[in-house]
């Protein structure tokens, strides 16, 4: 099933993530309403929207933390959403799915176990997914820490002894430990200070260059989208209102909502009153 030869055979142009006709309703609210997109191998796709746009629900369905009412999520051609489908619920299947897609959450203060050291977090993940080979795990732990710019001093530290930026580096290292094909980042830099945020954004760019991993980048920040994505989709009330290459969408937005989002970014000479009016008109 998870034959590496099959994966290698996939050409670089073929999408690693293919989402078609995703629907999810919570009561009468259509949180995700007919959402489709693809992520190329080693590509980076941004999902932009405000609260209630459905961007986080979409991400959670892709990761497997949320169930879709209908629609398909294919990773490397394999079905993943599995609503009443054949996707297994057994441990082996679950672990396999986890190896395909990993997630980095917004708040590095909540996403790490406060009682486990940094090295412990990584070793635990490696033990779970690649049992045996204890010596290999030690070596791999060192590599992962190095990859995210942490040293042996941080390996022995507990999360509370680290800064927000360092914690987010640990969360990224943990996600990379299983060598996923797709990394879903849900507002992963939103809680960080600007100077630290820039370090993490640069780190993510380096990792993508080195490993060919694909990013699904959920954010409300258009500056961040411009910085780390190739393509972008703009969501509003569960639907995609605009999609395309990031540079084009930001330079020449077609949908009035995308234009409103762009105008809302504060800059000198900014006119918040006009934006408030445009928002009411929309």
């Amino acid at each position: 099933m998870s034959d590496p030869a099959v994966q290698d055979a996939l050409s670089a142009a073929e999408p690693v993530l293919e989402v078609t006709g995703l629907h999810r309703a919570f009561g009468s609210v259509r949180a995700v309403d007919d959402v489709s997109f693809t992520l190329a191998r080693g590509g980076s796709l941004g999902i932009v929207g405000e609260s209630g746009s459905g961007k986080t629900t979409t991400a959670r369905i892709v990761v497997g933390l949320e169930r879709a009412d209908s629609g398909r999520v294919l990773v490397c051609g394999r079905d993943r959403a599995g609503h009443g489908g054949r996707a297994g619920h057994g441990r082996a299947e679950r672990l396999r799915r986890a190896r395909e897609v990993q997630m980095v959450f917004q708040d590095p203060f909540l996403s790490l176990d406060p009682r486990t050291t940094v090295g412990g977090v990584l070793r635990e993940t490696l033990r779970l997914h690649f049992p045996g080979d204890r010596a290999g795990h030690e070596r791999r732990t060192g590599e992962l820490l190095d990859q995210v710019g942490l040293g042996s001093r941080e390996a022995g530290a507990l999360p509370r002894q680290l800064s927000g930026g360092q914690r987010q580096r640990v969360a990224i290292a943990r996600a990379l430990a299983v060598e996923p094909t797709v990394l879903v980042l849900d507002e992963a830099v939103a809680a960080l200070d600007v100077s630290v945020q820039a370090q993490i954004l640069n780190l993510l760019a380096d990792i993508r260059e080195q490993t060919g991993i694909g990013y699904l980048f959920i954010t409300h920040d258009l500056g961040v989208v411009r910085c780390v994505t190739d393509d972008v989709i703009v969501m509003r009330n569960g639907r995609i209102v605009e999609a395309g290459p990031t540079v084009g969408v930001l330079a020449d937005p077609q949908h009035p909502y995308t234009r409103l989002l762009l105008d809302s970014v504060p800059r000198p000479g900014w006119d918040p009153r006009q934006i408030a009016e445009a928002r009411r008109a929309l």
Partner: protein
Amino acid sequence: MNEGPMREGPMSEGPMNPVLDIRGLRLHLPKTARPVLDGVDLTVAERETVALVGESGSGKTLTSRSVLRLLPPGATTEGVVDVQGESVLTMDPARLRRLRTHTAAMVFQDPRAAINPLRRIGDFLTESLRLNADLPAADADRRAGELLEAVGLSGRALRQYPGQLSGGMLQRVMIAAALMGDPVLILADEPTTALDVTTQAEVVALLGDLRERFGTGLLFVTHDLGLAAAISDRVYVMYAGRIAETGPAEALFNRPRHPYTAALLASTPRLDAPPGRLAAIDGRPPSLQEELTGCPFAPRCAFATQVCTEEMPPPLPVRGEPNRLVACHHSDRLADQLAGRTVHE
């Protein structure tokens, strides 16, 4: 916008008629090696919007909270915090209460955390006036209704519970609550950070309208230099408990004179910046356990020399630029380089 009265004053530094005047504020916390605030000077004039920008731990929130004497346990202070000429740090409890209900008001970052979910909006708005027996209940209710309309909500919200309102609407309620006592100064601590970008624009527009209508001074605390430049008359940039640089918003944004301001601008993922890697600032701010001898930014500064690690740079005026102070040993020498780092062709 309202730069007239501020610029024409006979004083070369700082605006006239400050409603808020902070001079040499130092704040020590127990079990720390250095003061959390280390000689902060800051003024806000009538009708003026002043932004205080910094990253977490810079002391920007403590500075704004000290204006209402909302200090952490065990804190000791030196220096002066005057609101309308009255010394906040030394006033007796009765006057302090009066200050907090009438003279200055705070709008916090997360409205849901600052409002009792079990009480109606109307009760929340009139609570402080009723407790201080300033107004008969009926008058307080009427004023609450008027202010809700002033912030763009209907009087119907008086009967509603916080859970029935969105985040943006609740932040409007918080602003209305701040206006209840008819303050001369509003302190807003990241009031739009928890809101969506389009909602942020609405709340900022509202704060601008209210300033014109009620003549209040506004101290806007934020981590977002772009937002600060967009909305304020003057900006203070804070780093490690000190003011690194202050000046008119536009000048500071277009021609930063402190390496930290320039680095902060360069590391922000802006829509008009060149594509590619961001100029991240290596390292992180000094912890409170580290004693500082020289400039607190020196270990992360690309331009630091020996003098930077040995002597703390005092805030000095910039030649030819009124209202501009920079605390950097090399500010004059670096002027062109710093501007070059952030202006992209």
